[in-house]
């Protein structure tokens, strides 16, 4: 027999389940397609245009930052594409392209690559980018005026009702019919076009086992109960203001959510509480994004607090078995 075989040598295990990061990223992108299509129907070419701008910016930013940090670009994991898509979907269709591009640049460049790349980021990049442009809004309004002529807009945009159900709720305006609201409505962010489409995508992610029910359910249940207790319409709260997008696609982000199921429930409940506080008591509309980002910061703490016992470990065992009364002296012989 040939003695000089060339054999692969690697550490055990010699089997792999076949999961890839890219598969999960692609599946999230697929899950976001229904809502994207509904939005395209409402806002016409403005939606694909904004999405293209964000995705290209995301890919460009990743390559730029990784080159600057002397690392190989990692576009094949599809995470840049997903971040770009998520940033685009979190804006309204009338958003100027350069604002969305700026948010994407911050998301991928600073919230992700600058911190070490996918896996090392503490905050959800898409939300971080989205919220940054809100925080810098006054300054950006100035830019908006400066760059006014750079605006690109396609037919379809003028039909947008700027008031979202959430603002109507806050202003005491009559609400749209619940049924149409659930299936599809115009107003608010691109991803708010259809609660049904978002749930469809969420179901796909659950089915593909990329996410589990723990975060979305605990988050939505908390918002539902919280707003109901405070005398609001819980269902409208659930279906608007990016809550579903946040619950199924943002808060469930692997990298920035707790690693155990118990931690994920705590995480979801806390996000829900913060959302209720923001919406009912403080009244801004971007409550979900802020709530998730705030809780992102607590993920390492939640992981530590919910650390489970090892197999066979008992609580008491943690206490040292070698206890010595206080004040005992030790003699060291030389």
């Amino acid at each position: 027999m040939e003695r000089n075989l060339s054999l692969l040598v690697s550490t055990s295990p010699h089997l792999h389940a076949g999961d890839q990061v890219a598969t999960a990223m692609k599946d999230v992108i697929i899950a976001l397609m229904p809502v994207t299509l509904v939005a395209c129907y409402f806002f016409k070419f403005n939606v694909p245009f904004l999405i293209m701008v964000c995705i290209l910016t995301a890919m460009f930013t990743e390559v730029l930052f990784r080159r600057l940090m002397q690392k190989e670009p990692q576009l094949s994991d599809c995470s840049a594409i997903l971040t770009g898509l998520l940033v685009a979907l979190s804006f309204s269709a009338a958003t100027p392209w350069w604002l969305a591009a700026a948010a994407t640049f911050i998301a991928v460049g600073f919230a992700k690559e600058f911190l070490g790349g996918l896996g090392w980021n503490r905050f959800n990049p898409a939300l971080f980018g989205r919220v940054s442009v809100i925080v810098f809004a006054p300054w950006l309004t100035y830019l908006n005026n400066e760059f006014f002529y750079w605006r690109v807009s396609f037919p379809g945009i003028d039909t947008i009702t700027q008031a979202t159900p959430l603002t109507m709720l806050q202003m005491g305006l009559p609400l749209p019919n619940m049924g149409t609201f659930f299936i599809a409505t115009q107003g608010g962010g691109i991803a708010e076009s259809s609660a049904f489409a978002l749930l469809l995508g969420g179901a796909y992610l659950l089915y593909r086992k990329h996410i589990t029910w723990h975060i979305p359910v605990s988050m939505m249940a908390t918002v539902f109960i919280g707003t109901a207790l405070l005398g609001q319409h819980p269902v409208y709260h659930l279906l608007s203001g990016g809550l579903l997008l946040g619950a199924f696609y943002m808060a469930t982000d692997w990298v920035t959510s707790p690693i155990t199921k118990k931690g994920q429930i705590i995480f979801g409940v806390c996000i829900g509480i913060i959302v209720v506080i923001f919406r009912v008591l403080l009244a801004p509309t971007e409550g979900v994004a802020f709530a998730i980002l705030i809780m992102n910061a607590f993920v390492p703490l939640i992981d530590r607090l919910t650390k489970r016992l090892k197999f066979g470990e008992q609580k008491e065992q943690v206490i040292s078995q070698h206890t010595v009364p206080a004040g005992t002296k030790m003699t060291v012989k030389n």
Partner: protein
Amino acid sequence: MVKTFERGISIPDYKELTENMPIQDLPQPSELIIPLRQHIGAPNRRLVSVGERVKAGQIIGDSDASVSAPVHAGLSGIVREIGSRLTQTGQLEDCVVIEVDPEQEELTCTADDATKLNKDEIVQRIRAAGIVGMGGAGFPTHIKIKPQTKVEYLILNGCECEPYLTCDHRLMLEYADEMIAGARILSHLLDDAKVIFGIEVNKQDAIDLVRAKLEKEERMEVVPLDVKYPQGAEKQLIYAAVGRSVPPGKLPAEVGVVVQNVATAKAVADAVIYRKPLTERIVTLTGSAAVQPGNYRVVIGTTLAHLLESTGGLKQDVAKIIMGGPMTGWAQKNLEAPIIKGCGGVIALTRDQAVAAQEYYACVRCGKCVDHCPMALYPSYIGMYAELGRYDLAQEWGAKDCFECGICAYVCPSHRPLIEFIRQSKRA
């Protein structure tokens, strides 16, 4: 409801390649390479020298240390060399190389009346036969059956939860009587501990056969277990079969249980009743690149090269050869390593089936490793801290309690070499 443990994972088992193939003898090898140490514990001293004739069954290495087990020559021949040779783990070990006589004397062992032996004599026979755990651990059996604490259960491990392997399955079918006799002897040594055969339900024929044979036994039973990896890991098996948890860093005997592999039990019967030393074992040769997959009776010390040559060689596009199971075994760089007492399988894989070490990415915290870790550790954190060189923190998240079942690396979508990270953290 079949019993099982918490977490773990189901893995495609590929056992259909060999599970229905009866045990066959391998043609006699012309050379044996016998590592002097095939157990956990003190190394053996060689008892033969170069040029010496050895008889089949002769002890060639032993030690005075209590945690040790002698090794024997499986066939008669002449000692050609004593020196370092490559073994299955990729490490060099002192080995006795024997040029085997082409004509072997027929070795006949006659049964003794083992009921006349006292316990010390039985333990002595087990030690003299060089019996160690044959499921891979290699812990000397005569030590394991003399625990300090009272033992209520003796669990016979017939799970064979590693994919591909079928050697224990065939042994249970073809040597059920010997295995049960061995179990009876071991139970007797453990002051009549209750005997439980833990067998995964993918071996229903073995469950049925052993059950039928145990019909009249009061203190022996079969407990069917779910097909899940690592069902055959000691702590997981104990939890599944009798519902007891062995605390970290403790031995099963401390919760009143001793576990023995089914092949070990058969070897015990051979040793005590026939005084036959452990010089052969059943090995599953399998995988997409094996020409004649099957279950073979192999003399300890037979090289991989001989095993493969005498079974039709390898397919052209062979890419990886593993000794042991696919989840915990070792990839070989050549065919020099010999079969040892704890090696139950040789798996040859073609390129499309073989996993190569590949580029890996940062942990994306998907949680899969945490969800499936049978020890409830945090492989993600262990890996991350090991990568950062913070081995103290890696240990805080459980590195030392890992028994390297391989699940975490098996599920990781970032292809992180978690077992390597864990080994580094343990050493630190």
